[in-house]
């Protein structure tokens, strides 16, 4: 069994921990299940010369529009080709995928496709500065985990309250000079156990951890 654990750590302007929480997520979304299965269903070993879509998932993008996300796809006879099924580690300042946070408190539903109210990247009122992602992996014989985390810094001049977090994946494939598939979609969404108020100049580190235990 693979468990998904959510957590956060709140740090003051000096970087000292001033709050943390970790809880078992019950938040994997239909989008995640579909794209994972699109990969697992793939046969592999297609014949030489084959091109096209082999397996795919119909996911809902951030706007709720149905989009095709390949699990396995080959470019045709063009100069460019290839891609990735679900990238997660967005760069600093990019609030379109990776770990996102929000201020909404709408209960989680399995077919959610966006946060209830995303806190956008920035330095204005009600915004947080989205940092880079970090990952960690720890493998043992009876207990293992892999984790992705992201730092959010409040430089807005006032407090910002976080009530929800989510993980958005990016499915992106090119064919020739054209982008063939390009969709970002929410794969997990969680409400924090209690709202977290991030003081000005403080930071919040949010994380998702996949855990295996015998």
């Amino acid at each position, binding site marked *: *069994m*693979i*468990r998904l654990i959510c957590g956060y750590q709140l740090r003051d302007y000096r970087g000292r921990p001033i709050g943390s929480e970790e809880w078992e*997520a*019950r938040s*994997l*979304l*239909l989008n995640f*299940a*579909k794209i*994972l299965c699109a*990969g*697992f*269903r*793939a*046969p*592999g*070993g*297609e014949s*030489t*010369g084959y*091109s096209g879509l*082999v397996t795919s998932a119909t996911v809902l993008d951030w706007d709720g529009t149905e989009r095709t996300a390949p*699990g*396995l796809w*080959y*470019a045709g*006879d*063009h*100069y*460019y*080709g*290839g*891609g*990735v*099924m679900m*990238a*997660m*580690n*967005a760069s600093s300042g*990019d609030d379109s995928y990776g770990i996102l946070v929000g201020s909404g408190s709408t209960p989680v539903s*399995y077919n*959610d496709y966006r946060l209830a109210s995303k806190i956008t990247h920035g330095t204005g009122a009600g915004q947080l500065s989205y940092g880079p*992602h970090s*990952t960690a*992996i720890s*493998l*043992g*014989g009876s*207990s*293992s*985990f*892999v984790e*992705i985390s992201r730092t959010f810094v409040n430089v807005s001049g006032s407090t910002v309250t976080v009530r929800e977090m989510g993980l958005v994946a*990016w499915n*992106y494939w*090119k064919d020739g000079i054209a982008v063939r598939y390009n969709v970002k979609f929410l794969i*997990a969404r969680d409400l924090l156990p209690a709202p977290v108020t991030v003081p000005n100049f403080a930071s919040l580190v949010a994380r998702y951890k996949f855990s*295996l235990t*015998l």
Partner: protein
Amino acid sequence: MIRGWIDVEVRDREGRVAAKGRHEMRSFVNNILRVLHGYMNSSDGTPLGDFSSASTTVVGPTGASTSIYIKLYFDGNLNIDRRAGGCPICLGAPDNDDSYGIVVGSSDTPLSLDQYSLGSKIPHGSGAGQLDYGTSTSTETLDTGVTPPVYRLRIVRPFTNTSTGSVTIREVGIYARSYWKREAGVYEDDKYMVGRDVLPTPYTIPAGGSASVSVTLEVVLG
């Protein structure tokens, strides 16, 4: 949460059900986390502009570490055909292929997350101690009639005993294939185990009999 179930149904040479059971799948192994780690790190933060790739290291069936691609993209700077694409987690194995998909074995070596192969794989074939591996098929269903809802991927594979003696299954493995193509050739083709379970009850397939082994992966939804 992602969990799984293993179903085994054994039939004798006349097609009558001789044994049947359902067991909770207890163990994905560390390779599945290595792949997830690869996905977590697979963006360079920009659209694919030039040759770019992301990879992760898994442990192959021989125990050797192997780098597999999570992302692979070729640019057009070279005036030749660079078609490419692929997938690192294929489970849909074809007929007669015992190197990936659902694979069965005869060992009851206890589980450990760092295992990378079955204790003793039963190979494809018709000789003593072998089984004829069939084609994997899969179905997906969303079940909202349970709380919480689950999304199921059921992979089924038939095994036929065409040898002259009985063959006993004690373990079930899930092997993935990472397969990427470039131009007209294969750029990468590796297999690695992502799950293994020792069955609480061994299943003996008589000569002329068969077994259907299915793995049902369940993503428990929010």
